[in-house]
């Protein structure tokens, strides 16, 4: 508020919109106070007691070697994806030849909507349809099982040019 302006500029700033959202945020937090702090989940009795032994036994059972992931797989998947996309597009044209008539009749908004809804809907599920289980498994391994540290080690061990790490 202008009239409350302090006599001297103190130099502090608040993030934009902070005071506008303040009441909103505060009341939300107050409402949250009425909700229980306990989640309601329970565990079977004694579950935690023997867990160390169960896990150690499992660790010993698991094969020691870690899976080696071929460097080329990612590329192969992208190739397959591009081929699949190309084939899909080709079929679209074969089975839905462009309708004769005045293309200018189609409003721009409709074309945009078509691109948004139909072409963009070629998502990971569609991709999953064209890949075998093995390839999908490979994708999962690549995306989820590699720790940053492992990747870093791999890069450091295998690349001559360490500047790539800066990227």
């Amino acid at each position: 508020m202008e009239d409350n302006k302090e006599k001297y500029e103190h130099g502090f700033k608040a993030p934009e919109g902070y005071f506008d959202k303040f009441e909103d945020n505060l009341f939300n937090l107050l409402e949250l106070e009425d909700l229980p702090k306990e989640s309601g989940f329970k565990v079977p009795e004694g579950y935690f007691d023997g867990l160390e032994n169960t896990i150690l036994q499992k660790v010993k059972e698991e094969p020691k070697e870690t899976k080696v992931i071929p460097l080329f797989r990612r590329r192969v998947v992208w190739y397959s994806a591009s081929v699949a996309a190309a084939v899909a597009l080709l079929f679209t044209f074969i089975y839905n030849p462009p309708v004769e008539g005045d293309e200018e009749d189609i409003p721009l908004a409709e074309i945009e909507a078509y691109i948004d809804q139909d072409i963009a809907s070629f998502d990971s599920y569609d991709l999953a349809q064209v890949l075998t289980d093995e390839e999908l498994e490979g994708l999962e391994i690549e995306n989820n099982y590699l720790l940053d540290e492992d990747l870093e080690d791999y890069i450091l061990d295998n690349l001559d040019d360490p500047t790539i790490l800066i990227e």
Partner: protein
Amino acid sequence: MLIEEQSLVSALQSPSQKEEAFRVLVSQYKERLYWHIRKMVLDHDDTDDVLQNTFIKIFRSIDNFKAESKLYTWMYRIATNESITFINKRAKRAQISSEEVQQDMISKLESDVYFEGSEIQLQLQRAIATLPQKQQLIFNMKYFEDHTYEELSEILDTSVGGLKSSYHIAVKKITAYIKENETG
């Protein structure tokens, strides 16, 4: 890293002490990691599987653990990734989205013998399940587990500012959901 944690890590990385140190690690973290996973995958048996996989992964990767990060945040990161992988795998198998998987898990909660929540606790879980995955994580870790934003920032690799705004958005959505679905 704390000195205590440092000596535990060195023991974990030494072949002769690894097993004993790992036993200590499991007993120190089993409950915390269990509850962290449970809030994401909801079912006890699924949580048990994910927790065991998490510890196996920790055991296998401990040699690569670098002292720059805290052992505890590193383990939480693994547990989080394992839980997300579990949900995504289930979604892929059933050919549905991970959001649908969560809705399905929530609907089973009512008859789950290991969920003894009241109606409002169930409603809170339903509300959380409507959030995007990352907001769910942030909300659960802040609301139920009392992590600091700095810890969350390290675990989830997100800025403190981003986390704060995500938490506020999550709180807003949850209170709105509870209000909308209020019974009686």
